[in-house]
């Protein structure tokens, strides 16, 4: 049957068709059945998404009936801090994603180190990123646990673990403004996490959950390169230092369905009393 179509194309009466005899030796390895870049990148908290915002998309390219997995490494270096993340995720059926991330936060200037583990789950409830009228809608949870609680406790944190809940909607426009493909994601998160949770959960200033807004917009310059911005609202629970919203400006590269690289300029505001924490972000993901 393979030759069926090709023979007809080559030997058909059509004059243009008869001309083509270039055998492109395309091979189709077992791979995810979703389109390139729809797996997104990996966030700092392990879930699939942009860099700092989890998206409604599920990581990897696993479509119906398929399993997919990713491993990822991310580094954020701002003036007085450095965050290193090692993460992994598995997805099934373009329906459910489980993720795990280890974060290490190096207090370069102050001295010392903070770290936490994050176990995440995300379920696609409805819609599709690309097809149909509905955006893709997912809900997720992230269970976060501090590995070193001495410092968070000393600065007023109330708990060494907590769960973030979120709901996300994502939509792609294949032929968006400037005839480029655009993707937008909006996430609403209920959280008590101070600086992602690295400074514990809840605080002496405020100890209740906040609803936080997170958003990303990206434009694909071509099939492989995208540029975008992200914004993430943060709670402000601790008296000792103000916590501010995060922003970044990123460039993402998707050379194929197995690798993605994201670089960003980030503005993390004030952290632990040290203002204007800006710097760079780099994340590499391998998908299977």
């Amino acid at each position, binding site marked *: *049957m*393979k030759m069926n179509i090709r023979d007809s194309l080559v030997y058909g009466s059509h004059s243009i*068709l008869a001309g083509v005899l270039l055998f492109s030796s*395309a091979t189709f390895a077992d791979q995810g059945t979703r389109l390139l870049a729809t797996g997104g990148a990996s966030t700092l908290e392990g879930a699939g998404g942009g860099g700092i915002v989890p998206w409604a998309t599920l990581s990897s390219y696993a479509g119906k009936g398929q399993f997919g997995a990713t491993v990822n490494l991310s580094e954020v270096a701002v003036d007085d801090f450095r965050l290193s993340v090692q993460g992994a995720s598995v997805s099934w059926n373009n329906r459910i994603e489980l993720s795990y991330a280890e974060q290490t936060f190096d207090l370069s200037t102050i001295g010392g180190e903070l770290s936490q583990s994050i176990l995440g789950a995300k379920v696609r409830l409805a819609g599709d990123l690309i097809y149909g009228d509905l955006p893709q809608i997912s809900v997720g949870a992230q269970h976060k646990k501090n590995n070193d609680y001495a410092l968070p406790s000393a600065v007023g944190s109330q708990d060494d673990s907590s769960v973030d809940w979120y709901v996300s909607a994502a939509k792609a426009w294949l032929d968006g403004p*400037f005839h*480029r493909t655009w993707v937008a994601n909006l996430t609403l998160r209920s959280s008590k996490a101070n600086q992602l949770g690295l400074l514990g959960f809840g605080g002496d200033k405020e100890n209740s959950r906040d609803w936080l807004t997170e958003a990303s917009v990206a434009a694909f*310059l071509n099939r492989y390169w995208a540029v975008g911005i992200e914004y993430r609202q943060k709670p402000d629970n601790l008296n000792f230092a103000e916590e501010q919203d995060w922003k970044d400006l990123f460039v993402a590269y998707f050379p194929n369905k197995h690798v993605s690289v994201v670089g960003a300029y980030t503005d993390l505001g004030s952290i632990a009393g040290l203002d204007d924490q800006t710097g760079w972000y780099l994340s590499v993901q391998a998908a299977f």
Partner: protein
Amino acid sequence: MRIGVLLAVLLFTPLSIAQNLYQQLGEKEGIETVVEEMLYRVGGDDRIAHHFTDVDIMRVHKLISEQICDVSGGPCDYSGDDMKTSHRNMGVTNADFNALVEHLIAAMEKHDIPVSAQNQLLGLLAPMHGDIVEN
């Protein structure tokens, strides 16, 4: 800010801004070449080639080319069946659809169709997903 806007405009503005989609696709001849390339790739793809086993591929080539000529603003009137009727009971999956889209993109890349024109065509075809895919 103003420099940012200017940069964005420069980055995004297609060079071929004056041409309509049909022209950017290379008119009839360009479209037929791209569709042929796409079907040729489909024929080598074990994931979806089985759908075309007993199909008159020359006819499908003619009809898809005609349809693209039509929707892109060219001087053609699509003469085939609507998408729902022509793909009925075929059991085309979302994965099949994506596979065909990948081959279309590869074919357009090979024939140097500008990204802006690729996106316009994909934007016109993607809404047919609901009529073609049976889950």
